[in-house]
Each structure stands twice: as structure tokens, then as C-alpha cells.
């Protein structure tokens, strides 16, 4: 049992447990905080996989900005315990079993799939296969330049949209 394995299982366990907490929690704020925990553990897993930049982006943007936004909105709306209505009959009877089936099925096939030879080395691999930020940015600004520019416009639209939607009628 080498270090990467231990680290993997540890963070995996945390991630799964937090996800479970998200499902089970009664208050939305608890769900939000468990989601943050999931994201942090995922960031750690990214580090294990050698994607340092992505791990950083995950923490800064996802956990740091998006989740903060969620928490703000929960607090703003004073979202409390959700009432237990169950009007959708199909969701009641078939929803959860279907989702669990999906989970198991995907897990099963994922276990069988994937390149067995791709072994993640994690920390301390040879620099020949470096995932340097430089390489990533070169890819981003050359091959994927157009999507990059498109997403910047997307963000602009999102900002405008959010502004218009949430504006209080004066």
C-alpha cells in the first residue's frame, strides 16, 4: 500500500461521505458546506493525478467563488428546512431506484473500462510528462482559442442575465 493509494482512498472516502451528507442533509446550508468538502477532496485528487493547475482553479473558482455564491444566496433567501412534499408519483417510486441503478451500472462499467496501462504516478513522476501550466496555456490559446473567446462572451452574457433577473423592481 503505497502513499498514493492511501491518499486516494482517503480523499475518495471523504468525497463520497460528503456527497452522502449532501443527500441526507435537511438544511440546504449543510448541503452547501458538504459540497465544498467534496470539491476540496476532488482538488486533492486532481493533485494526485498531476493536474496542479486544475486543482488550483478548482479551489479558487469552484469552491471559492461558486460555492460562496451558493452560500450567499441561501443566506439571502433564508432557505430553511424544506417541506416534505411528495407530489410526483414517479419520482417517489421510480426515481431513487433508477438513479441508484445508474450509479451502479456506470461504476461497474467504469471498473472494467479505461486503459489499464495508464497508471497515475502522482507526485514525483518524470518531467517528460510534465503537465506544466505553460503547456496547458499553449494548448488553450492555440488550439482552443475560439472556445476560449466564446466562453468569455458567455460570461459576459451570464453577468448581464443575472443582473437583469435579480434586479429588484424599483
Amino acid at each position: 500500500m503505497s502513499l498514493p493509494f492511501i491518499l486516494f482512498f482517503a480523499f475518495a472516502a471523504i468525497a463520497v461521505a460528503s456527497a452522502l451528507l449532501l443527500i441526507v442533509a435537511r438544511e440546504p446550508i449543510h448541503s452547501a458546506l458538504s459540497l465544498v468538502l467534496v470539491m476540496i477532496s476532488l482538488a486533492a485528487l486532481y493533485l494526485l493525478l498531476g493536474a496542479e493547475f486544475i486543482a488550483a482553479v478548482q479551489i479558487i473558482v469552484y469552491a471559492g467563488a461558486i460555492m460562496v455564491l451558493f452560500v450567499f444566496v441561501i443566506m439571502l433567501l433564508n432557505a430553511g428546512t424544506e417541506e416534505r412534499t411528495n407530489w410526483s408519483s414517479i419520482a417517489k417510486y421510480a426515481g431513487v431506484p433508477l438513479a441508484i441503478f445508474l450509479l451502479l451500472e456506470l461504476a461497474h462499467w467504469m471498473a472494467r473500462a479505461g486503459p489499464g496501462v495508464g497508471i497515475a504516478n502522482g507526485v514525483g513522476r518524470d518531467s517528460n510528462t510534465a503537465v506544466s501550466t505553460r503547456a496547458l496555456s499553449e494548448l488553450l490559446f492555440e488550439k482552443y482559442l475560439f472556445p476560449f473567446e466564446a466562453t468569455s462572451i458567455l460570461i459576459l452574457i451570464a453577468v448581464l442575465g443575472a443582473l437583469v433577473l435579480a434586479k429588484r423592481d424599483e
Partner: protein
Amino acid sequence: MSGVPIPYYLVLSAILFGMGAVAVVFKRNIITIFMAIELMLNAVNLAFVAFARAWNQLDGLVFVFFVIVVAAAEAAVGLAIVITIVQNRQTLNVERVNLLKL
């Protein structure tokens, strides 16, 4: 030194994705549902990164980058909609927001 085989990451990704799906069906609070969707996105991100490592291509990472960016935009607009819903229907129960029918 041996690393963790890629399928492990993929299984974890699948598990997280499935749990997000369960949460989407199961929960009634709009914001919670939204968060469950974010969980699913995260799971997919994990799968991308794992594959990027597996095939030694950086394209997977670029894709993760874009997913995060789009998730951010989506979260912003989505929460704005949620606020609008709350202003109009005074409820966060998704089952009460049932006007999307003929």
C-alpha cells in the same frame, strides 16, 4: 513506484455522478438540486482529468477548464432565476413551481 490505476478514479467518478443523480431526484429544495447538479459536473471533471492523465493528453484538462467556466456562468444565472422564483412564488419547493405544463 506504482500509482493508482485509472479505473479507480473512474469508478469514483461514476459513484459521485450517481449520487448526484439521486440527489437531483430526491431533494425538493431548488438550491439543493442545483448543488447536486454541480456535484455531477464535478464528477465528470474528475473523469476528464483521469483520462487526461491516462492518455497523456492535455486536452482533457482544457475541457475541465471550460466546464468550470461554464459552471460558473450557469450558477450565476441559475441562482438569479432562483431568486426570481422566490420573489414570485415565495417558495423554494420545486414541486410548487409547477407552471411548466399545458
